[in-house]
């Protein structure tokens, strides 16, 4: 099941890249497409942050992940590199769980 999902999603991501370099340019030049596609990652990344931080299953929860996200936000504001942002968040969660 996991493999089927990995292979399907990988194929879909590759086909999107290939479509971009292959399809007639006017299809993707459409103003609505030009406007919508850049908004998708903004909305999806924000929704991923919210749901993966503040929920477990179908319940809304507040736990160490919120603290990890706050530390990540601080690291982003300080323009820390990606690995530092992610590691600081992981370390925050790990340390708080030890308490």
């Amino acid at each position, binding site marked *: 099941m*996991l493999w*089927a*999902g*990995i292979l*399907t*999603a*990988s194929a*879909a*991501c*590759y086909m*999107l*890249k*290939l*479509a*971009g*370099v*292959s399809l007639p*340019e006017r299809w*993707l030049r459409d103003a*609505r497409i*030009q*406007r*919508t*596609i*850049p*908004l*998708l*990652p*903004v*909305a*999806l*990344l*924000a*929704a*991923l*942050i*919210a*749901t*993966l931080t503040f929920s*477990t*299953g*179908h*319940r*809304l929860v507040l736990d160490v*992940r919120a603290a*990890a*996200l706050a530390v*990540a*936000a601080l690291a*982003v504001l300080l323009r820390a*590199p*990606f*690995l530092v*942002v*992610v590691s600081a*968040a*992981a370390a*925050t969660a*790990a340390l708080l*769980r030890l308490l």
Partner: protein
Amino acid sequence: MSPAHRGIVRDALGIGIASGAYALSFGAISTTAGLTLLQTVALSLLMFTGASQFAMVGLIGAGGSVWAGAATAALLGTRNALYGMRLSSLLGNRGLKRALAADFVLDETTAMAIARDSAPESRFAFWATGISVFTLWNLGTLIGALATHALPDPKVLGFDAAPPAAFLALLAPRLRAREPIAIALGAGLIALVCLPFVPAGIPLLIVAALVVLLGFRSLPAPRGGRPAREAGPPGGESH
């Protein structure tokens, strides 16, 4: 090699090293989410687009369905189609070469290619960055996954709590105007409001559908006569 080409190679290596470090955290997060070494490595080799990979393993790690993860990964991959469109006339390749070039269409390669003055330099920058990022991204994934696999309980490092940090680092460069900030806040709120009532992963698809509706509604007349911007990678520091 000309000085211009040497400069491009240096930049391409720098971007490759940065994405290799980013891939270390992908390897760690994917392994902690419960994917096997082979599945983690396969994602970087085959999917090869960072935000989509993080979304897939983040949702699997949170106990969501594999298919919700796959759908979200594909939706996050749509921006690569726009990048590909911008690069197609430049690359102008046919057949096998274009099929290979397509795999390298990323935030990083697009940013490097469109920043050059001449078409030959753009092409060189595209391929140099693509090869550098592909190599170091996969190497970083392997090392991150192997290191995490060696632990008796990977969760002790806290990487199961790290996916939101990865998403925040990818989101931040896109929040340079009022509209994306409003959309990000609205999307996060709507996803949380839906979450208790719908199957796992569906809040993301609801948010995506709403964004498409928002984007496809009749366009307002451009205010202040600003020309419509073309979609480009935000700073080229994510893929």
